[in-house]
């Protein structure tokens, strides 16, 4: 092995990352165990959080504001948005803290730094899976009670959608985490920005309800097609637009590439600046 001042920008050392898969899984386990140790409800929080958020949204946006839901049961509409948005948002915010919150560890020992953000994606994926199954249970419940929900063959695309969210969260997250080694302001911007971005994504409203002049704005947001497709696949209302999905996919690839390059540069010497 050779240690040099600068590595090739595109030398992401994925093989090394693969070799540290045990470490990644142990990080996942650590995050999982440590978060819910000494809490009364433990992993039940994974269900309580989306449930309470959905109920709140149903009440505020559905009942009080009276936003349309493409004819879907309000509860399912908001729950689909919440479950999927939570995954993206937590991937983004948690990976964006990679360098800052692991500074002490990174300063003392070397292991592939990318294993931290990757482990975050996986532990969030576990949470997402639990919530997703919970969501399926509600779909079943509503369908049994005769609600107009029509899961269709687009559900086969679900893994791709999850991958796109993970990719977008990871890419944006590691860009931000790399920049926060220099600019601490970005940490606050992320918290705030993710919330704002949610309102620019059809989480609490359907694309069909947007006035024409805002459509472009919503369509530029790479998360919009993901949320909209997800909802169409499982609930059968809304739109699926393949070019938009392709745009999101391309966007994700570019963000990941940029993120990886910046991350690669920063990880070599960030200890000198933290």
């Amino acid at each position, binding site marked *: *092995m*050779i*240690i*040099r*001042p*600068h590595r090739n920008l595109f030398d992401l050392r994925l093989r090394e990352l693969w*070799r*540290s898969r*045990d*470490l990644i899984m*142990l*990080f996942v*386990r*650590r995050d999982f*165990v*440590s978060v819910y*140790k*000494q809490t009364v409800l433990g992993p039940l929080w994974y269900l309580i959080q989306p449930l309470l958020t959905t109920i709140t949204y149903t009440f505020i946006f559905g009942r009080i504001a009276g936003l349309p839901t493409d004819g879907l049961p309000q509860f399912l509409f908001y729950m689909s948005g919440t479950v999927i948005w939570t995954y993206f948002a937590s991937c983004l915010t948690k990976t964006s803290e990679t360098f800052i919150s692991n500074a*002490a*560890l*990174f*300063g*003392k*020992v*070397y*292991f592939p730094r990318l294993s931290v953000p990757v482990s975050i994606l996986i532990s969030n994926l576990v949470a997402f899976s639990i919530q997703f199954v919970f969501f399926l249970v509600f779909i079943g419940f509503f369908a049994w009670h005769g609600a107009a929900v029509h899961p269709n063959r687009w559900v086969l695309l679900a893994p791709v959608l999850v991958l796109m969210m993970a990719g977008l969260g990871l890419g944006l997250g590691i860009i931000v985490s790399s920049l926060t080694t*220099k*600019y*601490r*302001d*970005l940490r606050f911007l992320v918290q705030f920005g993710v919330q704002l971005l949610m309102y620019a994504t059809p989480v609490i409203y359907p694309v069909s309800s947007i006035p024409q002049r805002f459509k472009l704005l919503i369509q530029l947001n790479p998360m919009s097609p993901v949320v909209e497709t997800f909802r169409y696949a499982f609930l059968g209302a809304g739109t699926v637009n393949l070019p938009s999905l392709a745009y999101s996919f391309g966007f994700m690839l570019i963000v990941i590439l940029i993120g990886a390059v910046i991350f690669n540069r920063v990880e*070599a*010497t960030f*200890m*000198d*600046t933290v």
Partner: protein
Amino acid sequence: MKNAVISVENLTKIYRLGQIGTGTLSNDLKIWLAKARGKPNPMLRIGESDHGNRSGGTIWALTNVDFAVRQGEVLGIIGQNGAGKSTLLKILSRVTAPTSGRVRISGRLASLLEVGTGFHPELTGRENIFLNGAILGMNKPEIARKFDAIVAFAEIEKFIDTPVKRYSSGMYVRLAFAVAANLDPEILVIDEVLAVGDAAFQKKCIGKMGDVAKGGRTVLFVSHNMATIARLCERVLLLDKGRLIQDGGAEEVIAHYLRGGLGVAAKKEWMRMEEAPGNDFVRLRSVSVVDSGRRVTSIVDIREPFGVEIIFDILCLRDKVVPWLVLYNEREEHVFSAFDTSEAWRTPRPKGRYQTTAWIPGNLLNEGTHTLSASLNTFIPGGRNIRQAAAERAVAFQVVDPGEGDTSRGDYGGIWTAPIRPLLKWDTSCHRSQVP
């Protein structure tokens, strides 16, 4: 170098002093905006010159360092604070990248810059062994294979399923070291982690490090403690202000370091009569620290007697004169003064070259760096004396405890101040009848 497991070529590391940027995006943006409009930097203090967004200078933590380490070597790295030792270890352990130059490493390198890195307080001992082992570069089957050895080494069998936040600090450190010690890397890099834990455990750790080295593996060890370095390492690198200034045998380099730090070595010799301390009556010609075989040495085994050899000339038959020694330790405490009390010095002695050796018994001085002043004194009435020839802080040496348990330290590994450390004889008896 043949069989080099580490070769460091022209390694340089430059740190920028002060903050890089202003730390907040808004301030940096203000600077960019001001620049774009051709205005001066608004963040600059008045009178400060403009270095773009970098304030302060640079520091060369390492400058063109070159060396190679062969397989199986135990290499010590010494130097004062800020000499670049930690930077070198950080680069070798890939925590930070060098500014220029390169390092080739063959084999798995594990670094122990801190004990217990990545331990999570909420996780149990068992879970932390796996997590910490993985952070240090082991995979799961490897850790599972060594699990029992780690637990046994740390002596925490009973608490293995207790969260480590409930551990005593001793248990915590033992567990942490046990994981690291059982890593079995080809190259082990250690930064003074041995300065922790209780004595028996420290001894165990040093023993483990010895085993690691004997097993054909390579160890790089940084320490401020010359005694530990002398005990463990055969070869030592001396860094000073980022430069590698010496690379050689432990004794030689430690002696050089002491000379660098204190301006003195284990031997001081005055070749020319005019430079020699003294007057037209007596002149000091050399002062040296010697072992029982009369070889000059800067490292003294705490258990062994050693000598201070003074060579001087008496140039004419005149006064009574006695050789005199004053010893100081590294805290500048005056440990003792002594002079030769034998009959022979009660009368003036004839002209000639004299060689006298004062033997200092083993198990008397404490560990650490000592300096000696030597002089030739004449007693005068009134309980005073005149120093006819004197060499202040002429020589320095290092007293080392090899840590084999047969000194006054026993199995205690902690800090031991006090100027002397005699090995006492203890008599204990028990009178049962006197306890009600």
